[in-house]
C-alpha cells in the first residue's frame, strides 16, 4: 500500500512525532514517501532511503489550504492509499482538509495500526486513554492521525537529499505577524528520561523554584497541568495532557497533581510514576507505581537536600 507521511518542522528539524511515524512504517516495510509542511528555511530533512518533498510557505503566511492542494496533486499522481500524520497542529489541519476532498473521515487518536492483506486496522484511544477500540478502514484512501509517543523512534539517518516547492498563496492564505518561537532551555519534555510535573498542589507560583531545583539535580525536564498553565505559572509549552504534550519518560514525578483524565492521557504510559499528593483519594494514585500521601512543600525540599 503506497503510503504518505505528512511531516512537521520543529526548531528547523523534522518533529519527533514525524520521526516516530517514519520509524514505525519502516518496520512495516511499506512503500512510503514524506511531504513536510513548514515555513522555515531548513536543511537535513531528507534521506537516501525515502523521498521528502518540502512544501515551504512564506514565513508570514498561514497557507495550509494551499499546501493541502499541493499534497492532493501528489496523492493523485502517486496513487497513495494511506496518509499518516501526527495529531498535532499542522497534521490535523492538513488531514482534515484532505478528508473533505476525498470524502473520507480520518481516524484520530490512533495509537497503533496494522495492515494485513491491504486491510487497515487502527487501534484508537478514547476516554482519556482508558478504553481503546479497533476500527477497520474500508475506503480507497484512508487518513490516520497518530498520537505522539505511540511508536519508538529508531535511528533515521537524515541528509540534504530533499526537494523544496515554494507554495503559492491565494485568497485563503492569511497574513501572520508577531510570530513567536518559544525558547527551549534545559532538557526537552518529549525527550527527557525524567519528567517532574507540577500541579496546583504546589500552592503558589513561587514554589516552582523547588521543582526547578529538583529538576536540575536530576537532569529532568519540567512539566505542568493545565490548571497552572492557565494560572500563568508556566508557559503552555510545558503543559502535559490531552491539550498539551504527551510524554513517556522512564520516571514521571507528579507533584501536587490530582490526576484528571485529561492530564493522565499525556503521561500514563511513563515507565515509572511517582506521585506526591496530600489527598490519599487523588486519582493520580490509581496509576502510580509509588504514591506518597503527603505535602509537596515538605517532601520536595528534603529530596533536594539529600540528592
Amino acid at each position, binding site marked *: 500500500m503506497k503510503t504518505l507521511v505528512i511531516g512537521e518542522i520543529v526548531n528547523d528539524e523534522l518533529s519527533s512525532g514525524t520521526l516516530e511515524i517514519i520509524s514505525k512504517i519502516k518496520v512495516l516495510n511499506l512503500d512510503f514517501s514524506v511531504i513536510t509542511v513548514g515555513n522555515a528555511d531548513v536543511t537535513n530533512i531528507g534521506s537516501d532511503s525515502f523521498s521528502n518533498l518540502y512544501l515551504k510557505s512564506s514565513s508570514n503566511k498561514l497557507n495550509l489550504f494551499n499546501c493541502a492542494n499541493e499534497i492532493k496533486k501528489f496523492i493523485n499522481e502517486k496513487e497513495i492509499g494511506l496518509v499518516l500524520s501526527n495529531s498535532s497542529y499542522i497534521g490535523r489541519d492538513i488531514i482534515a482538509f484532505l478528508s473533505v476532498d476525498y470524502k473520507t473521515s480520518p481516524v484520530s487518536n490512533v495509537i497503533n495500526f496494522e495492515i494485513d492483506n491491504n486491510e487497515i486496522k487502527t487501534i484508537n484511544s478514547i476516554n482519556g486513554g482508558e478504553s481503546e*477500540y479497533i476500527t477497520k478502514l474500508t475506503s480507497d484512501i484512508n487518513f490516520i492521525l497518530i498520537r505522539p509517543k505511540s511508536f519508538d523512534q529508531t535511528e533515521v539517518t537524515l541528509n540534504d537529499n530533499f526537494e523544496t516547492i515554494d507554495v503559492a498563496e491565494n485568497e485563503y492564505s492569511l497574513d501572520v505577524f508577531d510570530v513567536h518561537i518559544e525558547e527551549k532551555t534545559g532538557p526537552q519534555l518529549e525527550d527527557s528520561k525524567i519528567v517532574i510535573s507540577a500541579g496546583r498542589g504546589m500552592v503558589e507560583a513561587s514554589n516552582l523554584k523547588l521543582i526547578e531545583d529538583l529538576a536540575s539535580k536530576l537532569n529532568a525536564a519540567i512539566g505542568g497541568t493545565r490548571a497552572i498553565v492557565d494560572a500563568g505559572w508556566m508557559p503552555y509549552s510545558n503543559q502535559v495532557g490531552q491539550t498539551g504534550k504527551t510524554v513517556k519518560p522512564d520516571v514521571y514525578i507528579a507533584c501536587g497533581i490530582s490526576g484528571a483524565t485529561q492530564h493522565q492521557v499525556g503521561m500514563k504510559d511513563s515507565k515509572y510514576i511517582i506521585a506526591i499528593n496530600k489527598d490519599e483519594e487523588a486519582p493520580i494514585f490509581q496509576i502510580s507505581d509509588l504514591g506518597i500521601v503527603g505535602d509537596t512543600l515538605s517532601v520536595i525540599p528534603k529530596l533536594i537536600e539529600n540528592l
Partner: protein
Amino acid sequence: MKIAVCAKQIPDPANPIEYSNGNVIRPEEQVLDDTDRYGIEVALLLKEKYDAEVTVISMTKIGTQKGIQQALQMGPDKALVLEDETLIGANSLMTSNVLSELAKNVEADIVIFGTESTDGYAGVVPQQVSRILNIPCISYVKNIEIDNDVTLTRQTIEGSEKIKLPEKCVISVTASGVEPRYPNFKDIMAAKNKEVNIISINDIDFNIDQNMEFNELNDISSSKDGEKITDEGEAYQVILDKLKEIKAL
C-alpha cells in the same frame, strides 16, 4: 456580521463515560461541553464589537437540550439545532457536513468551534467545515484582542502567531487565554425566551456514506497496584531508594 458558534452536547463529565461499539452512549439529558464555552466567549466578544448576530448551532440526539440552554444563557441570540437519531455515531465528516449546512442556513460570516470536544476529541471538525464552506481556517486560537480591529493569537507547534480577523473564516478556540463568562439569574431567565429552532436531517441537504466499521471495544484499565505510603517525614528516602533501584540515579 453573522456568527455561528458550535455547542456540542455531551454526557455530564461528572459521570464516567459509557460506550457501545466505540460510540459514546448519550443520555436524554446532556450538558454543554465546557470546551465550547471558550468559543462562545469569543463569539460574544465579537458580538459586542460589531453588534453581530450570534446563533448557536448543534447536532444532537433527541433530548432535553439542556446544553443548548446553557449555551444561550451565556448570551447568544438564538439556536439552530439539528436533532436526529440516525446521526448517533456519526463520524467527523458527517458531523462537519451537517454543521456546515447549519452555518449556511444562518448565513454565518464567521463560524466558531472548540478545538476538540471532551468526549470525541478528534479535533478535525472545525478544519473540515472550513474546507466544506471554502473559507479560511484559523485553528487553535488561544487569545483575542479587540481594539480598532480584532487580532487573534493562535497556538503553533513552535509557539504562537497573530492574525487579523478576516471577513469570513472558521475559528477554533482552545481553552486558554479567554475567560468564559458565567450567566447570572437574569441571563438564565432570558435564555428561556430565546428562539430555539429544531430541525431534522430531512430539512438539510445531506448525503454522505459512512466509511468505517467499528470493531471491538476493549477497556484497558490503566489502574496499577502501586505502593502507597504516608509521609511521616521520611518519604523522601523511599523515593531516593526507588530511583536508585530503577537506576534513574
